[in-house]
């Protein structure tokens, strides 16, 4: 029976190995324990021993090439045995390698490492509030910016008693406020504020005026804000955007929506759900748009995984409706609602907001007529959807009132050309204006 020779694990930490030399040629006899090849691992160059008897029938990874642990690199078998099926299991060397080296799919917006950072953030917030306790009444006093020195116990006692630490004189080393000082202050509660008459609370300017006067406020950028910044810069910088705009007559789509919701009010289909469905349908007809540029190759997606931008308190996040082309409108509607809800409560898992093939951003609810959106790499395009509004339009030489909506598609020119994008938009417009196409 033919035996697979796989890239062996030759050290506890090895992940891939490079064939530095084959010690047998195809057709050579090999026996168990005999050295077959020399392999460069992360630790050393080592001999790989044969683990079967027979003839080295096929070498699949040539000298100098690397393969990950466990990949088929050769086949040992009887001289006349059919090994075709075994050999066909091996991934063609070149593309496999490229895929191996391909960067992990970039993750938009929020990052998974957010989780562990939360306690830190909490601690930082706690620390900030502790400092606030001391600093707030002091805000106007520019003369005294010295750090407040206080023992952990005294800080806690002061916080519990609502005592203003700045009003106290520390008796410990370097003016550290210690338990004794708090106890002294608490035994004469009325006297304590009087002890610091220079900055009475009453005349202290309210915090907001203070902020307005100085004109700005520095707040540490949240992790999600930093990520958004980083991601969008990597987009508009290296990604050559171009924009295509079209205006769509939405009356039939609106009619369809009203019709469906009349049938079953629980469905709560929105115009946006219809847009998602239509986008997916159009993408399947234009696979060249349902694609991404990956430096060494262009990736075309089998299904339309539509990212839907959702505004959340800290920024935005793009949960993904997977295989929207295969889902019914009601399924899409339910899924979008559910994803958006969890997006707002920050409960999405990383795999739920990464890896879309195309995104939609809708600012119609804010009354925006038309805008351009920044592509979320490595996706090839994003569709910016404006508000639907009644407008006079000319139809058959008549001025009529129609519900119109403008959409602008941002395309990555590395993968989508002008005409390609335009054709996609044409299809999109056609279906959206006559949603019956969805069922045809």
């Amino acid at each position, binding site marked *: 029976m033919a035996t697979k020779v796989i890239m*062996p694990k030759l050290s*506890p930490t090895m992940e891939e190995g490079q064939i530095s030399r084959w010690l047998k040629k195809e057709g050579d006899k090999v026996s168990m*324990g005999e*050295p077959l090849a020399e392999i460069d691992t992360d*630790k050393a160059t080592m001999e790989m021993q044969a683990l079967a008897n027979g003839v080295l029938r096929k070498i699949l990874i040539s000298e100098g090439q690397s393969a990950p642990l466990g990949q088929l690199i050769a086949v040992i078998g009887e001289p006349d045995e059919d090994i075709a099926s075994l050999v066909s299991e091996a991934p063609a060397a070149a593309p496999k390698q490229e895929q191996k080296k391909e960067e992990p799919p970039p993750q938009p917006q929020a990052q998974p490492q957010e989780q562990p950072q939360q306690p830190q953030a909490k601690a930082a917030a706690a620390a900030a509030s502790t400092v606030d306790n001391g600093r707030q009444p002091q805000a106007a006093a520019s003369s005294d910016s010295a750090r407040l020195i206080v023992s952990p116990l005294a800080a806690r006692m002061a916080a519990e008693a609502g005592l203003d630490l700045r009003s106290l004189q520390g008796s410990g080393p370097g003016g550290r406020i210690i338990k004794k000082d708090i106890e002294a202050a608490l035994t004469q509660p009325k006297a304590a504020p009087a002890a610091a008459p220079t900055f009475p609370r009453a005349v202290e300017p309210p915090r907001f005026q203070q902020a307005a006067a100085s004109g700005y406020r520095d707040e540490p950028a949240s992790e999600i804000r930093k990520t958004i910044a980083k991601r969008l810069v990597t987009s508009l910088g290296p990604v050559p955007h171009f924009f295509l705009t079209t205006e769509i007559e939405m009356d039939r789509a609106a009619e369809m929506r009203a019709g469906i919701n009349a049938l079953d009010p629980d469905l709560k289909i929105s115009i946006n759900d219809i847009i998602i469905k239509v986008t997916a349908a159009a993408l399947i007809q234009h696979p060249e748009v349902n694609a991404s540029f990956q430096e060494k190759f262009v990736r075309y997606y089998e299904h339309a995984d539509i990212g839907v931008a959702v505004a959340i308190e800290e920024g935005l996040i793009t949960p993904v409706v997977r295989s929207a082309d295969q889902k019914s409108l009601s399924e899409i509607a339910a899924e979008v609602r559910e994803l958006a809800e969890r997006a707002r409560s920050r409960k999405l898992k990383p795999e739920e907001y990464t890896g879309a093939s195309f995104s939609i951003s809708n600012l119609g609810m804010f009354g925006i007529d038309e805008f351009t959106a920044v592509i979320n790499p490595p996706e090839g395009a994003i569709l910016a959807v404006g508000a639907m509004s009644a407008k006079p339009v000319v139809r058959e030489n008549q001025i009529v009132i129609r519900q119109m909506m403008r959409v602008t598609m941002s395309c990555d020119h590395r993968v989508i050309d002008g005409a390609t994008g335009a054709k996609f938009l044409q299809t999109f417009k056609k279906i959206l204006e006559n949603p019956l196409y969805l069922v045809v």
Partner: protein
Amino acid sequence: MSKQTAAPPSAAKAEEQQSSTGVMDAPADVDKHQLKRERDSAKERQKDRLSGLGADELIELYRQMLLIRRFEEKSAEAYVAGKIGGFCHLYIGQEAVGVGAISAIRQDDYVLASYREHGLALAKGMTARSIMAELFGKATGCSKGKGGSMHMFDKALGFLGGHAIVGGQIPLATGTAFASKYRGKDQVTLCFFGEAAVNQGAFHESLNMAQLWKLPCIYICENNQYGMGTSLARAMSLSDIAQKACAYEIASEFVDGMDVLAVREATQRAVERARKDYLPTLLEVRTYRFMGHSMSDPGNYRTRAEIEKYQERDPIKLFSASLLEEKIIDDKALEEIDRKVREEVEDSLKFAEESPLPDPEELYTDVYANPIEPGRK
């Protein structure tokens, strides 16, 4: 010292000549006729030995060696496939040592070993399943997945561990032998270690105590000629290990480790000394590992020709040839044994693969036998 009953070194030396069936490293100037005469007489002795055991017992020895060989081959496969982690030290080539020696003791006797112990654990009666599952780090392993390749244990079967600091098991084995004598029992301890462990202080400290206090411990030095990649000649000023027993007036023998019956008989003699008179013995068993020190061995310290030279004396092939020659077994029966052994190994692999990983809660169990909640009054 007046009660010294151990064979004096010179007698041990004489016995060594008798007990070895073949000279592994014949010096270049050895007379060829002399060599032939020795071989012929070795053949005769082999015949005698075979006749001393029933066919079932002989075939069982063969089966055990083959089981170890197949088990280790499968371990190697599973290791390179990434299913076994950490280190993995194979016993291939040394099967006759463990099987021969352990066949000479009872189940209530103790065995302690180094980290090259899969084969010894099998010979002591542990199942392929419990060992393979331990290699896979599974909850069903003999050490619940907490020990791994180098730390196999089975209390019920008297297998007291693989130990992974070179020579570390030698004082421990001296201690289990001490316990047997303390209790007045006639249990013996077999302590296996490689020749490189002989350079550790633990070896010398143990042999001194064992003879001083007359402890029933049999020290079996598996001299496979390399401590990792350093040959004996590069590591030991006096490389005749059996001779080191002289320093402690311990009986010793030189044994051909490729001959399972020679190992068995030498061990039997040592066991008798230990059971009857609480006396230790040092056996130097010349063997050879056909595979690397561990699975991550670059193999650049010895030649292929050298390995092939020793493979000619593969202990399993030698023994099956003897069995065939004496018509104790035929080819068909050999094939049948191989089939069954392969089945057993396949079954252990399947068992290991399908077994669950240890429960995360196991992380904190077995640290203490009497865990203490600090502060409890």
